[in-house]
């Protein structure tokens, strides 16, 4: 494939390998060379991940989910990062990493349990190398750092990726994670999706300077990548993970992207941001540019795109059916798994609730 030498469309510090128009560009430090199949697969990932999101949003509107946190617009950031992760790696997500979950092999249906309110995450983190969603902003960056310290102590080969948002960069925990990972040279990549907003607050409420520069203050490299360019994100993430695995310590990756939807389905972004901003970012859509690239280079044609759409439809149907099959838990299970070793206090309370619930039986 011919790689054309076009200047990236954003500031020089932004790593970009694919322009919004779908043209390949070069970068002095980062490059990528995939097979045609791999390029096509990335496109497929992007489409399926978006479909997970639209289907879940629809399910929320129909009352099947209590809430949904949409990743619309952030597909490339998540697929690029998620596909950079290998078997021995472990990811620590926020509540929006549906695309990373998908890459890590988490069945999208199990993602819905939390948002439906039937569980707090239906997958086993140890099986997937993907921790449960963390809602308290920033906490997981310390967990990721600790896990990475564990990898070091085990002499294991893997690395860790900690996900967080632009808003999270202000939390003490996140900055402590920067201190610790640097001091211990822990094999962790801090992957910040700067989607420009923390609910209603624009980036200026968190920082006066680009977020990737935060790393400088802690003694490790920071890099800003076009978060809507899946190739660039993949390249940058792979390099950062490789650096971590080699024992060179942490890297901060700032994936510069945009939250195209509301913060969650409970949010009304028209109260705080202008439609024009959205329009600008629509032109940088992560899927469109990959599609243009595949078309332009002849790596994929209409049939392939149609096939992907069919797969997306099937996935959506699977999600919908799976969601509706997610039954409410038995009330008495609310006592389960508070402790690994049980507790006499809970035994007593469980008995009380069981007796109380039992008192209604036959009453109706």
């Amino acid at each position, binding site marked *: 494939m011919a790689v054309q030498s076009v200047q990236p469309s954003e500031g020089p510090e932004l790593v970009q390998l694919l322009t919004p128009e779908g043209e390949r560009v070069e970068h002095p430090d980062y490059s990528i060379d995939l097979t045609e199949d791999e390029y096509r697969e990335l496109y497929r990932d992007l489409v399926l991940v978006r479909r997970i999101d639209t289907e879940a949003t629809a399910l929320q509107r129909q009352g099947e989910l*209590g*809430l949904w946190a949409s990743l619309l617009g952030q597909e490339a950031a998540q697929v690029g990062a998620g596909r950079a992760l290998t078997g021995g790696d472990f990811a620590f997500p926020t*509540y929006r990493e549906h695309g990373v979950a998908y890459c890590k092999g988490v069945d999208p249906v199990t993602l819905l349990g*939390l*948002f*439906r*309110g*039937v*569980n*707090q995450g239906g997958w086993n983190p140890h099986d997937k190398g993907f921790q449960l969603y963390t*809602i*308290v*902003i920033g906490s997981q960056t310390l967990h990721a750092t600790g896990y990475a310290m564990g990898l070091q102590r085990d002499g294991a080969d893997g690395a860790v990726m900690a996900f967080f948002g632009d*808003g*999270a960069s*202000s*939390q*003490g*925990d996140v900055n402590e994670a920067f201190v610790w990972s640097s001091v211990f040279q822990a094999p962790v990549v801090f992957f910040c999706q700067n989607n420009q907003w*923390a*609910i*209603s*607050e624009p980036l200026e*409420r*968190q920082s006066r300077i680009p977020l990737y520069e935060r790393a400088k203050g802690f003694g490790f490299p920071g890099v800003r990548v076009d978060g809507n360019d899946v190739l660039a994100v993949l390249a940058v993430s792979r390099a950062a993970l490789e650096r971590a695995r080699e024992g060179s310590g942490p890297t901060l990756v700032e994936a510069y992207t945009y939250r195209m939807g509301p913060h969650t389905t*409970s*949010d009304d972004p028209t*109260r*705080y941001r202008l439609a024009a901003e959205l329009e600008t970012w629509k032109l940088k859509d992560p899927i469109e540019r990959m599609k243009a690239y595949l078309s332009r280079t002849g790596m994929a044609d209409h049939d392939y795109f149609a096939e992907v759409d069919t797969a997306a439809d099937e996935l959506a149907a699977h999600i919908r059916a799976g969601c509706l099959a997610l039954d*409410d*838990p*038995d*009330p008495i*299970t*609310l*006592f389960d798994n*508070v402790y690994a070793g049980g*507790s006499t*206090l*809970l035994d007593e*309370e469980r008995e009380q*609730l069981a007796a*109380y*619930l039992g*008192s*209604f039986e036959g009453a109706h």
Partner: protein
Amino acid sequence: MAGSTLTLGKALNEGLRKALEDDPKVLIMGEDVGRLGGVFRVTDGLQKDFGEDRVIDTPLAESGIVGTAVGLAIRGFRPVCEIQFDGFVFPAFDQIVSQVAKMHYRSAGNVKLPITIRIPFGGGIGAVEHHSESPESYFCHTPGLKVVSCSNPVDAYWMIQQAIASDDPIVFFEPKRRYWDKAEVDPSAGAPRSLWDAEVVRAGSEVTLLTYGPSVKVCLEAAAAAETEGRDIEVVDLRSLSPIDWKTVIASVRKTQHAIVVSEAPVYASLASEIAARISEKCFYELESPVLRVCGFSTPYPTSRIEEDYLPDLDRILDAVDRSLAF
């Protein structure tokens, strides 16, 4: 100005507006409190009218919110901090417990910290983890803090202003699932009572329900339901959780000789434990049955699809009333 029908959320909004108008030193600070007006719209319109310097959208850092509020208070301001949800107060816990609560004591009274920390609390709104908690006991157990909770629009309107006017730091718990409850609020009437007084919201003779915040409504409903069975239940809205208006509480229990504490918080080592312990001590001879507690269980707050089984509801309260009277 005549009264108008307000939701509890709007009553808080009006109370905050009044406080901002009355005292230029009052500030509002928190995540999304400005342009958005807060995720529950409690601060809606305030930034527009009072400016970005007085209604401050802060960085996403709760310790920072409370820690800078301490500095602002030392400088003479009266900051009102919003914690977006109950489960997100813990990053600020150190600043609250070791600084906010202790500064007046540490300084022998030289440094006052008139800080109000607003926390929407409690469950029942079908939310995800960390959005339905009842952490009030942690703050009640902390000397140097005062802790209050409103249960209705009238109290919301007045209590928030009284809290802001207090020279002591106050943790102000707002019953989030009652934000949309409505009542007539008359600003011209004046505050109906002191911030520290409990209120007998329903008089009765057979058993006393002691409660606060979101559970007041549930207790009133339980009392109404019990009435149809001929039971006469008294309901006390504690309003101030630390200190508690023991006079009102003890008087009620001395009268009914049966007491039940109702709260959503996990029961173990909680404010409800304190109430039960103190009543048991003070009304040792008057009590005809043990003080019962209808509270959250000793588990983390569960997923929303079973939260109704976790929360004290009408049936669990009535069951306790039966047990108390049948003892």
